[in-house]
């Protein structure tokens, strides 16, 4: 169209110095989009330092050379988590395929039992084992043995209670989603969701014990307590009762209020002691033991 019109050198110099009148600027801008020659002239005349362009190029090259973040970190970043946090959270072994796979296997087993067995009693293994998974997951999330970069991470400015808790929350959300999916597959109505409050309460209890004695022992203590409590109750109760009935009773009806109360108490204690979730603290404990 306007192939005969070209911007004069004077116009381009004034334009690149942001020092020209509005109609000239409009003309030049409309023209530059279509004229390689005038773009080249502008680059030559604009008096910008080549080092400056080089510096910005280095920044660009830096960004595009960076490898893509791992899938999980990418998801977390898309959810609005800042990049360093997403990377450190996803680096947890608890997010590794092995741990997630193990959980799927266990939950899948319990689900299969519930589907194959008859009646709501078949659901008992699921109810019994569901609260154990997050309790173990806390160790995997938090224990230095499961983080190959634990010492480096603990020295980084990001390490601290917040990172420890972020990892734990990430692990718990994966486990809880898997359990939830499992209970949906079982599908015995509302009874299949009775694991939620007990599981949260046990997870909360695990966190409280973590702040006292460290991750490894905490999980062990909680899991042992969980199993022995049920068996003790079973022994103390009349011998004619069945274990499944006992477990089912423990999850049903008004008992849910007890579990809800326990959740609140544990939540409050965790909140008060939140500063104790230090990766460095955990490292120290391991070093001393």
């Amino acid at each position, binding site marked *: 169209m306007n192939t005969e019109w070209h911007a004069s050198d004077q116009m381009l110099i004034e334009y690149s110095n*942001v020092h020209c009148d509005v109609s000239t600027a409009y003309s030049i801008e409309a023209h530059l989009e279509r004229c*390689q020659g005038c773009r080249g002239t502008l680059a030559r005349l604009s008096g*910008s330092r080549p080092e400056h362009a080089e510096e910005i190029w280095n920044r660009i090259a830096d960004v595009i050379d960076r490898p893509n973040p791992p899938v999980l970190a990418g998801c977390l970043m898309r959810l609005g988590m800042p990049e360093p946090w997403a990377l450190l959270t996803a680096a947890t072994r608890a997010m590794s395929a092995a741990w997630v796979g193990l959980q799927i296997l266990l939950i899948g087993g319990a689900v299969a039992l519930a589907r194959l067995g008859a009646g709501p009693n078949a659901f008992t293994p699921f109810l019994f084992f569901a609260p154990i998974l997050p309790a173990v997951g806390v160790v995997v999330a938090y224990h230095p043995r499961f983080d190959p970069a634990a010492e480096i991470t603990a020295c980084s400015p990001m390490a601290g209670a917040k990172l420890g808790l972020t990892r734990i929350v990430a692990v718990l959300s994966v486990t809880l989603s898997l359990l939830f999916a499992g209970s949906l597959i079982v599908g015995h109505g509302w009874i299949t969701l009775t694991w939620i409050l007990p599981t949260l309460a046990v997870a909360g209890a695990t966190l409280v014990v973590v702040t006292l004695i460290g991750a490894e022992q905490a999980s062990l203590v909680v899991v042992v307590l969980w199993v022995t409590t049920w068996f003790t109750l079973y022994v103390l109760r009349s011998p004619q009762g069945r274990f499944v009935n006992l477990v089912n009773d423990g999850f049903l009806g008004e008992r849910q209020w007890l579990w809800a109360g326990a959740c609140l108490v544990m939540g409050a204690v965790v909140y008060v002691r939140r500063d104790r979730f230090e990766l460095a603290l955990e490292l120290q404990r391991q070093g001393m033991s």
Partner: protein
Amino acid sequence: MSVDSDAVGPERSDVQLLNAVGAGDQVALRELYERHQAWLIARLRHRCADPDVVDECLQDTFVAVWKSASSYEGNGEVAAWIWGIAIRRLIGVLRKQPRQIVFARDDTVMVSAEEHVLSGVQYGDLAGALSGLSPELRAVVQATVLDGLTTREASRLLGIPAGTVKTRMMRARQELRGALT
């Protein structure tokens, strides 16, 4: 319309470079950057007075070009396509930061008669009419007409409500019509 769709010799055209970038050629991106950074900086500086923001925006723009080069459909000028990215990156960067002085343009400059004639070749009487517009109206004309932004994008760039963009555009149109007839 594209003049450079047939490359002469070893020199690759913008379209060829962009296709190469889409295939992951970093050297092509570098060449594209060298060709376009100067005018992009100049044009961004007409819209944002803060040089750091302009630099950040230029960087974001070429990272975006790297990522989305394969989505270029081959119609229209590559330069215009890149500018479309750049102006939207500028909106993004400005939204993250406290508002900068946008459209910091010195309007008191005396324009030589020669330049008036030259720009007259491109726009005719429009030059005078544009100069007669208030800076607020001109900013809206620039964002919507020249940069091809939607009403909503323009409102974000200028930091004014979308309704205001529309009314200012209407007023600008009336004033231009009045000045041209």
